[in-house]
């Protein structure tokens, strides 16, 4: 730490912000495992301090000309030098604030949600581990540090998904999540190594600078961009590696709210923002990203149409919104992606927390069940839910509308119109699936006689659902705050754009936006909501989606486009029964077999030779004579 860290306030704030959750994690794990109250208090206290530091950093550096970088020597090995430190610039400060705010709120919320759960101190320990990792990832000055915390975030998600480890499905989901993200990480690690080979070090500022483009050939640049994008696919559950996110709903709802909607999965998009100039240098990587973003957005929204589990719906919506952000970024509209990430974090966390309250009180995830059990009676959560769903659908006054609009404008500037059409179709679907559960819960059909589908992800709560009012209000306050955020964030677009725009970033500056785009956007949103109302809200609606009418399509979407079957087949057939069985046989039969064969062979020859020695005396004399004659004969050769 070159600069004496005590005197420089920013550095002090950055250190406090990141390292406090780590201290609370260590203290809780080592000492206060058996006292839930103390451990909860500790981690919330630590979180509040880091929240304050994050906000302090944000407003102190509101007007920032150039990024601040502090780096201390951590590990030196020959030519490779891995520093540890902080890189504070608008991108990271905004993300730090988002993570801090939502983290703090969810920690308060989970006080109520997790009350009575035996492993509560373990829960808070893992939460603070996650927050430490996420915040250090956000402010990482080098790709090394970012990769290290990228893995740690993956680890904490594994621990939190598998929090109720007695349930087989929870541990299975945790394992699946970790392995899929780890596959992405491997690709990212390779991309990093390519850059390291050519650049010498991995500091983010140098990667973003044009110097790198000069050193690497365009082909290599694209390859490393694609590889790093592989990491983003893994972490943000994009097209090929998306099926782990819906399964990750096994974890407690606050975890889903914090990790698997707003912060952790957004790390991929954040990395994209962080290396935006680097990606910008390779156009085909951008088009590939665009394609992946669109594909995963459409697929996820189709899946959301049919599922009956409320948390799965929001999980699919997260995947599709992330697809939106990546489309926005890939289209060159830097601010649109960042802004949508912020707004999405707010309203998606709100959605999850509301459904959390519903699940917490009615003990079921199924939307029809929730409706029937009187979901409408809980006034505050339902209200916040509607607001958040509205923001998700992109209804005008809410923040979703503004951020999605920006993305659509970015897409409009692209030469090829197909991306814009897909985005618009996506917006329509989003609106439709956003309001489907709302209407089902608000207008339950007693006589619908829907078979009680045992949805795979019903979270059976074994702890007593204490409905005491204190818990209710503890969970209530964060909802209200988040609802407020979704309402007013839309209007903060201008100052944020100014704040983000300070660091001169390349990117397509939007020329005048066609007016018709704004209106089509509103019409599609309202149309989607209307269709949902038509099919689910109206008194005489059969509450059967237009998709469910076509059974083939229904099954296709319900089976997650058979992706899970493919992965199951691949891991089971190819890896388990195929390659490793082959290697195990090779190990036992070929290598071991040959060695045991050699040793058995020597023992057999031993037995043979010892039999040779049992012959008659005269054979021995003969043998002596013959050998001596042969040795004499050898003289002549």
């Amino acid at each position, binding site marked *: 730490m070159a600069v004496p860290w005590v005197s420089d306030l920013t550095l002090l704030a950055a250190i406090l912000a990141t390292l406090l959750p780590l201290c609370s994690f260590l203290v809780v794990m080592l000492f206060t495992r058996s006292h839930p109250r103390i451990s909860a208090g500790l981690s919330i206290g630590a979180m509040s301090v880091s929240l304050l530091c994050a906000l302090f950093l944000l407003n102190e550096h509101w007007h920032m000309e150039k990024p601040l970088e502090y780096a201390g020597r951590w590990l030196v090995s020959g030519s490779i030098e891995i520093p540890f430190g902080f890189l504070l610039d608008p991108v990271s400060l905004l993300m730090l604030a988002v993570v801090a705010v939502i983290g703090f709120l969810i920690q308060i919320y989970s006080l109520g949600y997790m009350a009575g759960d035996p492993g509560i101190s373990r829960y808070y320990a893992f939460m603070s581990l996650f927050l430490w990792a996420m915040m250090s990832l956000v402010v990482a000055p080098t790709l090394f540090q970012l990769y290290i915390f990228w893995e740690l975030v993956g*680890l904490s998600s594994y621990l939190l998904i598998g929090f109720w480890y007695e349930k087989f499905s*929870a541990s299975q989901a945790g394992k699946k999540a970790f392995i899929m993200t*780890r596959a992405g990480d491997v690709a990212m*690690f390779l991309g990093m190594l390519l850059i390291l080979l050519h650049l010498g070090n991995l500091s983010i500022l140098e990667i973003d600078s044009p110097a790198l483009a000069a050193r690497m050939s365009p082909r290599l640049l694209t390859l490393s961009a694609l590889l790093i994008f592989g990491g983003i696919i893994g972490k943000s559950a994009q097209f090929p590696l998306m099926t782990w996110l819906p399964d990750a709903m096994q974890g407690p709802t606050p975890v889903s709210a914090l990790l698997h909607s707003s912060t952790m999965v957004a790390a991929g998009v954040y990395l994209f923002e962080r290396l935006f100039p680097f990606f910008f240098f390779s156009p085909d990587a951008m088009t590939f990203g665009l394609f992946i973003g669109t594909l995963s957005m459409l697929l996820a929204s189709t899946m959301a149409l049919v599922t009956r589990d409320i948390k799965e719906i929001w999980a699919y919506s997260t995947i599709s919104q992330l697809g939106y952000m990546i489309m926005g970024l890939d289209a060159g509209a830097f601010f649109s992606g960042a802004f949508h990430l912020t707004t999405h974090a707010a309203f998606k966390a709100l959605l999850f927390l509301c459904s959390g309250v519903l699940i917490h009180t009615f003990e079921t995830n199924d939307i029809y069940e929730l409706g029937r059990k009187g979901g409408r009676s809980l006034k505050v959560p339902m209200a916040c839910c509607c607001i958040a769903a509205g923001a998700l659908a992109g209804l005008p006054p809410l923040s979703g509308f503004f951020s999605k609009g920006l993305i659509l404008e970015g897409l409009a500037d692209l030469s090829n119109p197909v991306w814009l059409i897909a985005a618009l179709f996506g917006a329509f679907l989003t609106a439709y699936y956003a309001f489907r559960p709302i209407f089902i819960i608000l207008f339950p059909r007693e006589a619908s006689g829907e078979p009680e589908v045992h949805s795979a992800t019903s979270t059976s709560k074994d702890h007593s659902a204490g409905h005491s009012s204190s818990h209710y209000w503890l969970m209530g306050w964060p909802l209200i705050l988040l609802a407020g955020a979704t309402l007013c964030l839309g209007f903060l677009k201008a100052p944020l754009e100014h704040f983000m725009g300070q660091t001169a970033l390349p990117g397509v500056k939007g020329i005048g936006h066609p007016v018709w785009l704004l209106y089509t956007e509103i019409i599609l949103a309202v149309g989607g909501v209307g269709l949902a109302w038509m099919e689910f809200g109206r008194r005489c609606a059969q509450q059967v989606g237009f998709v469910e009418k076509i059974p083939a399509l229904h099954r296709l979407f319900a089976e997650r486009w058979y992706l899970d079957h493919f992965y199951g087949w691949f891991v089971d057939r190819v890896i388990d029964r195929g*390659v490793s069985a082959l290697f195990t046989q090779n190990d036992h039969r070929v290598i071991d077999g040959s060695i045991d064969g050699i040793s058995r062979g020597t023992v057999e020859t031993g037995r043979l030779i010892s039999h040779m020695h049992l012959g008659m005396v005269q054979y021995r004399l003969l043998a002596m004579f013959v050998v001596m004659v042969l040795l004499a004969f050898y003289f002549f050769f």
Partner: protein
Amino acid sequence: MPMEFAGFPFLSAILISCLAGFFIILCLPEARAREIKWVGAVCSGMTLALAIYLFFAYDKSRGGLQFVERVQWIPSLGIQYFNAADGFNLPNLLLSGIVFFTGVLTMWELEIRVKEFFALYFLMVTGVFGLFMSMDLFFIFVWYDVSLFPMYPLIAIWGTTRKEYGAMKLTLYLLAGSALILPAILYLFVQSGLNTFDIVRLMQPGTFTAYQQKFAFILLYLGFGILAGVWPFHTWSPVGHVAAPHGVSMVHAGVLMKIGAFGVLRVAMFLCPQGWQHWAQLMALLASIGIIYGVLVGLRQTDLKYVIGYSSVSHMGIVGLGLSTMTVSGLNGAVFQMFAHGVMTALLFSSVGYIYDRTHTKAIAELGGLSRIMPVASGYFIVAAMAGMGVPGLASFWGELLVLLSAFETYPIRGTLAISALAVSALFMLRVVQKTFYGPANPKYVDLQDVPFSLGVPRMILVTVILLFGFFPSLLLDMIETASIPFINGLPR
């Protein structure tokens, strides 16, 4: 006998404390098991303390050989009892100290034939310490065999599944390795014409021709490689680990496999650099196959110790890959990984040992939901499993990172193969953790109680070491660097 000691002979002090333990235990009567264990704990504690003191007393700025001890042993053949500490062998000495001390504590509950067990155990570890600190070819070979032959009685008498087959196979296989090493050492001794076994003198450039170096290197690499678990010769290690009692398999997998890798480094690479450059391609190929192979075969195993055995084959493959890249960071990574893997495997075996002592079964299928029954004991295993997967914040991540970095630089294809093994190793480790620790609690074991504090001490030490070197790798890396930079720069191009 002209003796040259720089201050108090710490290195010999380690050996003497081991041998003192050996002789005291021999003199104690068989019945007094408790006293034997206490003597064992005290002596191993002393060696650990000495190793720690050495580790921190080493003057990193000066580098080179320190704490030199030299005694003319057999002048006519140029054999000396020559011990020294440098960047390469101090981490290993520390590792042996730690694993030795925790190994003794892990075997605290042993009841049958305690005296013979600890006597042979001390003998084995004396061999291990001797080899790490020796700079004389003759003594390296002597200590190599001293550390090997107690293996047979240790495994054959106190072992578990298929112990006699395992013991015989292991001992014969490892001594077949020595059948390759001794001719190579003699070949070098004779070809050098200097009538000395001293590595420092034989190391000077120009003592051997290129052909001699190539010839000797491949023999030494195969000889020591067998012990290091190089790919085609690895089949003894899982069998040996399963058969051995867990205290022995801790030292065996934790330290003995490092002797193989250290032997390759200290003897083969020091004396035959051109041979190393010639055979590096083969080393890298075998190592990367070993990494993938160990993990994939581990997937199919049903016995907990087999799983750990194959995971150590894979990790030793990483060490081999590190050694094969002729870069400073590759070498640093390899030595760091030797240390990290040693501690991690020791923790794995010690926790499996605890589980085996309680449930008397190692089959993963029968175990299940142990995390509910004994959270602390399974916690230790999970930390070790995480380290095995290369999770950052734990020691072996840095080793793997550095090795894979430099491997990717010099051998791109093999490097990619090794890096992709990271994903499969995650699948492999998590599957084990999930089957044995998560999921519904197995009714048979519900009444088992968690590990008491007294038995938890060894595992706690190992966990703290993993975390300490996970968070502060530079502690170890600066030490290793003082030795690897001069070595790599000294290589003839």
